[in-house]
């Protein structure tokens, strides 16, 4: 019989392998996503809307918190003002009303329809890439000209297949837990480069600035 410690070690090793793969597969897309955050806030003061189910709902809220509060709280930056962000997973009245009256597939798309404008950015999270409510919300964002980031895993599911997101961060892993860890790493990195570009004294060299 396997020991608990062996299972834990295997879990850590699998995580390391996934992070290693991210070095080759995800750096470009995470950079693009960070620059999309910069553009959203800098150009016209837009809002970032985030959504997902279960653990991805928690991640959606986590992203909104990094943006509104701050990632670096060590006073690295002289003037890191709050950035507009809203997780679509938190208002139980809205969620239950939409789920009850229209169906669970519409819990995010209905809110995007109500709230998002072309200057905004949406971030949809689905480890399979197949969550119907995330797909519907990305579709409505596209129809309305709202820029989008999709965060997925495995083969990226329908979100990847039908190119429903302008920027796709697909974590090269099969296990849901490890995909979610990859998502956390990805959005921390996105926020990190955004804060560095907008609020540090030195700025940051990026692909788009040669």
């Amino acid at each position, binding site marked *: 019989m396997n020991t608990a410690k062996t299972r834990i070690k295997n879990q850590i090793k699998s995580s390391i392998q996934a992070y290693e793969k991210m070095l080759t597969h995800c750096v470009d897309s995470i950079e693009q996503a960070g620059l999309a955050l910069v553009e959203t806030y800098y150009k016209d003061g837009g809002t970032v809307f985030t959504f997902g189910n279960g653990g991805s709902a928690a991640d959606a809220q986590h992203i909104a918190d990094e943006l509104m509060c701050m990632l670096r709280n060590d006073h690295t930056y002289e003037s890191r003002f709050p950035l507009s962000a809203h997780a679509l997973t938190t208002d139980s009245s809205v969620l239950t009303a939409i789920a009850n009256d229209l169906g669970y597939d519409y819990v995010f798309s209905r809110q995007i329809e109500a709230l998002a404008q072309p200057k905004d950015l949406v971030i949809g999270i689905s480890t399979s890439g197949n969550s119907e409510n995330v797909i519907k919300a990305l579709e409505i964002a596209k129809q309305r000209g709202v820029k989008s980031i999709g965060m997925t895993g495995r083969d990226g599911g329908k979100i990847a297949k039908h190119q429903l997101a302008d920027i796709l961060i697909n974590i090269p892993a099969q296990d849901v837990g490890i995909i979610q860890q990859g998502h956390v790493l990805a959005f921390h990195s996105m926020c990190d480069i955004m804060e560095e570009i907008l609020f540090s004294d030195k700025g940051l060299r990026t692909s788009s*600035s040669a």
Partner: protein
Amino acid sequence: MKALILAAGFGIRLREVIHGRPKHLANVNGKPFLQHVIELLHKHNISDIVIAVGYLSERIVAEFGDGAPLGVSINYSVDDRPLGTAGTIKHAEKYFTQDFLVINGDTYIDIDFQALLQFHKKNQAEVTIVATSKFHGKGGSIQVKGNRVTAFSNTGVGTSKFENAGVYIFSPSALKRINKYERVSLENNLFPKMITAGRPIFAFKVDKPYIDIGTPQHLQEAIKKLPPK
């Protein structure tokens, strides 16, 4: 002479009074502050204007468009991220082939800009800085020897008799010292570098105070001092 207005900054200290809008559009006596600056330039026969925009650039472009209603022609140099004052001027470089006026979009000083240009040419300066003896506390102090600038400080007045009023003449050659997309400030990077290299930076001395909208208190003062509706 063409002019470049710097209007790309965040306006952190003014956020509490103009929440969510660019500070340069703060309402001063019925019009955006930046419109006062544009009208000042127009009054001095400067009608070919480039506005360097960055933070909330779309709002400023939407406000002034091509400048026709104000009798001027406006082009926009759009920064896609904070570049610092010097980086922003570098980014607008393509619009300028001759000596040009640079003016902070959050400060206002009514001086003879054409005389400033003549002074710059006569001295064969690379940069000329308008230096006022009326301290206002925003621009940083300047040390001069004769008309030549010898040092800058953003920390207190010290022994200096002049403050940077946020208005300059630049020769395009001054921008060769900045790399594209580098984040650089005038006072902390470019000017000290030029002084060390022995490049000619001159001070055009005036005894007028400037008006600025950098803080809520200064904005209130600007409202009292700028032309009414």
